[in-house]
């Protein structure tokens, strides 16, 4: 944990022209040399610190991109450790693939704030900065937890969980069989165990090879559209995405769930959620929608708050303004084609990004795009969090896969089941890390759930 070599994408995603992947730790050079080939053919492990080298990065022997590798030798680096930074052409695909290559060759995904933490522990930051560093880690881990939340709700996470549960069942059987030898626990059938492990092995293998397909990895800015009922959120959503997705009627409270869509506006990818209008709901079903909307608000990276130009600021509007205070947000004053009754002073206190438009009459669209571009270009979204949670999930799935291979090898070699069990538990432990569980407890709990044991 303390001495592993870590890696992460250290530039905001999909926004800049250049993407930087940073590797830090004892093995930084060894790992970097496995994926990077310099034009000069020099090994990064042999070159001096503070030097840059032009070459290319490879993943599974395929060239990904041209690349400049900058080498820092411990202790003369940000973290005080050996550091390599790969600068590649920006763009999510390239940066992510480079990170993947680095992780597959022995680095582990950096935890929230881990570069900063190492810098501090290695004496690279001033003592007075300790509290700031602790705050940064706190904040970053909060942001990472937000992304992890999204990841955990995904289909992929469900598949991983299924594999974990299958393995836990097997481990619990092995444990019950060993811990309760006199309690007529069913014998361990070699073939049945082997089949179960093979199935889990194949599932993990399939998961890993199909990891990036579909929407496994989400790029772009996680954006939520909020506003009290009937201010035109769904119309705005439809305008941005280009077709009718949300149900649009003029009955307040029609959008009762969270609608999600991905749209590209001026090369900026937005993951849009249209939410139920936030108001003090009296109807139970609507209330669920409102609660969901508020939850989305707390996990979103960008908030588009919609207000009705033709009405005065209501109690519900003010409550929304309170909720979004301190977040990165754009205030859309919709229905500018109607009589303007709204006083925007209160809104100005919360954000300077205000745009007047009419989603229905399609006016103010260019202004909206400009302000979006400005916000996306300047705000620090730290979108690498989402990628990193995904990469962390993937690298743990990979580690689990390797441990499972060990378990299957032990079985094939004819090792005793205690050796099979410890490898199997290692495999489960990596999957448990995703949810913060501990393998021994999970397995022991399952023993009692599954088997009738005890004197």
């Amino acid at each position, binding site marked *: 944990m303390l001495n592993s070599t870590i890696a992460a994408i250290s530039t905001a995603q999909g926004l800049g022209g250049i993407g930087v992947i940073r590797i830090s730790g004892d093995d930084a050079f060894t790992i970097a040399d496995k994926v990077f080939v310099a034009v000069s053919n020099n090994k990064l492990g042999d070159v001096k610190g503070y030097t840059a080298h032009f070459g290319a990065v490879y993943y599974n022997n395929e060239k990904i991109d041209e690349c400049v590798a900058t080498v820092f030798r411990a202790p003369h680096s940000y973290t005080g450790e050996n550091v390599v930074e790969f600068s590649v052409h920006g763009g999510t695909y390239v940066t992510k693939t480079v990170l993947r290559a680095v992780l597959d060759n022995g680095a582990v995904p950096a935890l929230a704030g881990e570069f900063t933490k190492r810098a501090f522990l290695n004496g690279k930051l001033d003592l007075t900065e300790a509290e700031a560093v602790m705050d940064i880690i706190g904040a970053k881990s909060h942001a990472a937890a937000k992304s992890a939340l999204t990841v955990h709700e995904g289909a992929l996470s469900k598949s991983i969980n299924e594999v974990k549960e299958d393995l836990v069942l097997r481990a619990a059987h092995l*444990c019950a069989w060993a811990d309760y030898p006199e309690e007529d626990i069913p014998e361990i059938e070699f073939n049945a165990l082997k089949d179960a492990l093979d199935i889990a092995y194949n599932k993990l293998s399939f998961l890993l090879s199909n990891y990036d397909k579909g929407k496994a990895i989400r790029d772009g800015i996680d954006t939520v559209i909020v506003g009290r009922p009937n201010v035109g959120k769904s119309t705005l959503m439809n305008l941005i995405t280009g077709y009718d997705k949300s149900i649009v009627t003029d009955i307040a409270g029609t959008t009762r769930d969270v609608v999600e869509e991905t749209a590209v506006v001026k090369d900026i990818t937005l993951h849009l959620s249209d939410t139920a209008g936030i108001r003090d709901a009296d109807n139970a079903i609507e209330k669920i929608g409102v609660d969901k909307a508020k939850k989305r608000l707390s996990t979103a990276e960008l908030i588009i708050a919609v207000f009705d130009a033709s009405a005065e600021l209501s109690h519900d509007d003010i409550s929304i303004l309170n909720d979004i205070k301190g977040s990165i947000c754009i205030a859309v004053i919709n229905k500018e084609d109607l009589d303007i009754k709204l006083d925007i002073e209160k809104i100005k206190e919360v954000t300077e990004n205000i745009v007047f438009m009419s989603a229905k009459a399609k006016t103010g669209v260019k202004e909206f795009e400009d302000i979006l571009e400005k916000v996306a270009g300047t705000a620090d979204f730290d979108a690498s969090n989402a990628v990193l949670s995904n990469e962390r999930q993937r690298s743990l799935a990979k580690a689990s896969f390797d441990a499972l291979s060990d378990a299957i090898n032990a079985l094939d070699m004819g090792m005793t*089941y205690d050796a099979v069990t410890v490898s199997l538990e290692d495999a489960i432990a990596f999957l448990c890390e995703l949810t913060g569980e501990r393998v021994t407890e999970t397995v*022991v709990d399952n023993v009692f759930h599954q088997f009738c044991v005890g004197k």
Partner: protein
Amino acid sequence: MSTYFAGNYDVAVIGAGHAGIEAALASARLGCKTAIFTINMDAVGNCPCNPSIGGTAKGHLVREIDALGGEMGKTADECFLQMRMLNLGKGPAVHSLRAQIDRRKYQDVMKHKLELCDNLDLRQAEITDIEKNDDGTWTITTRMLAQFIAKTVIIATGTYLGGKIFIGEVSYESGPDGVFPATFLGESLRKLGISTRRFKTGTPARVKRSTIDLDRLEVQQGDNPPVPFSFDTESLGENKVVCHVSYTNEDTKKIILDNIHRSPLYGGKIEGVGPRYCPSLEDKIVRFEHKERHQLFIEPCGLDTEEMYLQGMSSSLPEEVQLQFYHTIPGLENALIMRPAYAIEYDCIDPTTMNATLEFRDFEGLYGAGQFNGSSGYEEAAAQGLVAGINAAHKVLGKEPFILDRASSYIGTLIDDLVTKGANEPYRMMTSRSEYRLILRQDNADERLTKIGYELGLISQERYERFNKKQELIKQELNRAKNTVIPYSDELNDILVSRETSKVSNSIRLIELLKRPQLNYEVLKSVDVTRPDLPMSVFEQVEIAIKYDGYIKKQLAQVEQMRKLEVKKLPDDVDYKTLTGLRLEAQEKLSKIRPANIGQASRISGVSPADISVLLIWLAKRSQDTHSSEVKNDV
């Protein structure tokens, strides 16, 4: 009525069960003037449940206690009736020794050892009150109003503290086996500010041997030859008894289900939390309704008694229902119940209020061990007693605290689990609870712990030298296995074929052969002509070291990782609520558990890796702060 002053002690141990005994012996042997109080002189070292010591994971604990100089293993050897190494064939990590013992003899031997031990007074008294004195010592008062002053106190009250027995609709205050309970001490502890809770456990009936039709039942023999627990016991002689096996059936199930409303547990009378792994028969039948039959073992309680223990048949149903359902079991149709089964509820504490030394964090000099701490089982109790006894003595002697970590032993794992995760039910040791089980084996407990026991002063010079000699032999034999070449021969290939492993076409090193799971020292005997004459235990160690080398190395690497965090101590006075960057849940958990080091903190559920990062930074800052202020003071 007034109290009288009755004497001073360094260490006072309340309770003379398995925890109290190890605690008192350790403290007295370390040179502390020690008193051990028992509520009844005839209840010392009682085994109120099964007449056996050891079993899965518990056998590991007994051997570890022995390697550290404790008494349980030796006494079990002296009183054994039958020895079985469980799980043979399942791998060395889960091999576990279990002894059927002569229950009364065990008590007599243990009591006599206490009586003969220097520095130790065994006294019959119910402790009714415990109070902290201004000078840091403790005053304990007996029911007879004697007052003792002790520098440290170890509470090992087992199921006696507020004990209450339930048999169907009948319930009464009592300790186990009809001995009276400790009625006042619980209130005294609560007055001190120690909160208690209720746990529950139970035991089956004892039936008269001559009324069981043993001839019809399956016999369970002991091992031949029987293997002792203690690394000090040379040999055991022969097994003295056999056990028998029978099963419940549909009739048993029907009687229990028809009467389930009469169970105090299902009737809601028992508030205590019972262990999942030690369920009553009615629990098993209700929770696993589809299961057709449940196994039971019929075990003799001793050589000079006809009482037989029915392992697996614990119950708190009324006596008449017990009689009915026991009579449905083959072989027990005419069984006479000598003692009925019962459930017992008792007071215990939340072990997360303790340090890994088993000292209460908020009460210096006050320790707890055994069921009082929320565990279950004789062996778990003895293990904690030993650690509490050593620590109480060390406190008196001004020595360093004695802490075993998870990677050192099952004892360390047990205590870390208790003080870090707490116990929501009586905690039983299992091999599944140890993540390092391939290196924490019962066969190498001596290798792991004898040196520590010797350094503590609990292992004699003579035994330590014998241990070192064994280690030397293991090293030499390992070298010989590495360097010995077994020449190619038809005989060798015949052996390989008969063991279903691939033939060789050239000479091969002995170590390469031993790596194969199909082969062992025994089968290679005829081709390994330079083999020296060594004890079996030496060959066993070498064989395991060779066969499991890859797995052992992997676990050792995990241990090394863990220990890096374990040495980063967290000071006692951290106010976690003020540490910015910690999540709220982490702040709360850390404030409650107060981990001793970063490693322990990382094992608390709800403390994330990011929280650990925050703690590491805070620690680094603090150590730099302390360092710079020291420098200033020097100036």
